[in-house]
């Protein structure tokens, strides 16, 4: 927040008093967060803390009861998910959402923003109107696949990839949208240590691409190495914010983790 006040630039993401309930349960309770451009922020907390619901409410797949979400100063509250994605905020899912019966390359190409050929009228007019663009996007997609070590599998069906590769594909696919802001929802959940290290390397490289990152994570060591600061959530509320090494000793944080 110090970074935000230093410059006149609006925060990349601003969440104001966001509330989400399911029936009688307040899953997200008056959460306010500010994230500056190029920051990497971790959101941690025990199971049921409301981390994933918060992500869904920010990205539009769950409608918040009240509160506001602003992306680079522009309100995106209650926009449908695809509009939020087009506005520059892309999320990944805890359960991989790969397009199984499409190739790895095709999976990336779906994410390319503002494709002319993806509009019905240009598609109907014929390929000469979008072919050049398609070839350019294919080159870009291949470049991303090479960076993420998936180029070898470019023509394989995404459904044939391993669990770890799918999470990496999900990140590569998200980058294809040229996001300003990327929210990774537990990118390492349920994966073997070796592939976690690989994913860590990829996530580490994201800020260099000019992307602001929110990392929802369970593994504290992973977050500590990658995040500039963390937001600790418990029972739908923000418990503490700051550098993880300072929070490790915090009695409330420790208590929340043990109680959770």
């Amino acid at each position: 927040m110090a970074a935000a006040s230093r410059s006149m630039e609006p925060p990349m993401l601003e969440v104001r008093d966001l509330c989400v309930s399911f029936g009688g349960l307040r899953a997200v309770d008056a959460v306010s967060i500010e994230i500056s451009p190029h920051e990497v922020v971790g959101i941690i907390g025990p199971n049921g803390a409301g981390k994933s619901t918060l992500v869904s409410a920010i990205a539009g797949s769950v409608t918040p009861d009240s509160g506001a979400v602003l992306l680079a100063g522009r309100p995106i509250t209650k926009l449908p998910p695809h509009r939020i994605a087009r506005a520059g905020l892309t999320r990944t899912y805890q359960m991989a959402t790969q397009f199984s019966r499409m190739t790895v390359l095709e999976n990336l190409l779906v994410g390319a923003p503002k494709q002319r050929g993806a509009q019905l009228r240009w598609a109907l007019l014929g390929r000469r109107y979008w072919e050049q663009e398609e070839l350019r996007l294919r080159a870009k997609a291949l470049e991303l696949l090479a960076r993420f070590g998936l180029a070898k599998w470019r023509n394989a069906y995404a459904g044939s990839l391993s669990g770890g590769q799918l999470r990496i594909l999900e990140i590569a696919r998200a980058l294809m949208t040229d996001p300003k802001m990327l929210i990774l929802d537990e990118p390492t959940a349920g994966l073997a240590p070796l592939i976690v290290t690989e994913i860590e390397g990829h996530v580490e490289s994201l800020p260099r691409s000019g992307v602001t990152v929110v990392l929802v994570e369970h593994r504290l060591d992973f977050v500590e190495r990658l995040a500039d600061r963390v937001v600790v959530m418990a029972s739908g509320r923000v418990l503490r914010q700051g550098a993880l090494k300072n929070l490790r000793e915090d009695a409330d944080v420790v208590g929340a983790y043990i109680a959770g």
Partner: protein
Amino acid sequence: MSGANLYATTLLVYFFIDVLAAWGLNLQYGLFGMYNFAFILFQSIGAYTAAVLTLGPPKHVFGTQDYFFGAQLPFPLPIVIAGGVAGVLGLIVALLLSRNLRSDYEAIVTFGLSIMALLIVTAVVPLFNGASGLAQVPEPLQGTLGLGAGAYSWVFVGFSGLICLASYGVLRRVQGSPFGRALRAVRESRDGAAALGVNATWCRIVVSVFGAVLAGVSGALLVEFITAWSPAAWTYVESLTIFSAIIVGGVGNDIGVLLGVFATEIVFAEGSTFLPTSLPPNLVGSLPWILIGIVTLAFLWARPQGIVPERRDCVRISKRRAAAVTWDVPTHGDFADLRDIVDGGVASGRG
């Protein structure tokens, strides 16, 4: 006109009409994953529209058929309007479904719609003459062409074939484009596609309307050819046989679907009538349905991808244009020359 000639032309017209309908459903179900169990309803609304617009105003005397409106429009207007009316119904159904994107919800709503519509049309006689249906629909251009029945049938074969060809051209453009790729992405994961900026609701409106237009035109062609249409022709089972043709032929592949229609509607349904049989007479009538059911199950079990599977990497780029591009991107040691890979991706369409 010889019996064989009549048989051949009838079979061919049926084949083209079924292919047209199956392509419409393949766009909805095969590409987009929309479970439209009311598909026959769209074919039916096309048939009724074309019939009413060809028959002329109802005479309302005892012994004639009763229906609403009625006009005698020149060919091909009844067929064109039939497609339009079905398209509007497709839009309405897409909007009805827009509250919820889940496919089980789609299936239940469309199945319910299909049955409701059948009950209403059967019960409300002034609509489309109830259970007896509409008959004696004049064949298009029959008087003006001055052809014998045999030659006329061949004209109809050619006409329905041309409509199929034109529809294939349009479908190929849609399916082989990045828009078609977005449709497939929604089929595979609605959440994943939305997170990448794909507007699934708009996609569903497009496939729902476009599929409905194809269904409506196929229904209009059918009624103009057989000159009659009644509720018995469009029970929900008819929707299921189109699903069967798609599953047998290849979900998401229009050439496969064409072969699927040939296999189910011609080889099995029609072929079964030639089998020497000692089955009870009531069962003989149902034999085509039973055979189609068995074949569908066999394919789902042994070859779920169908006769011709969906293409790998569906976007079609001309090789010439791909070769003309110079690439200015780094290679990362995974492959020698990036251009080979892009060309390879284009050339190895079937992978």
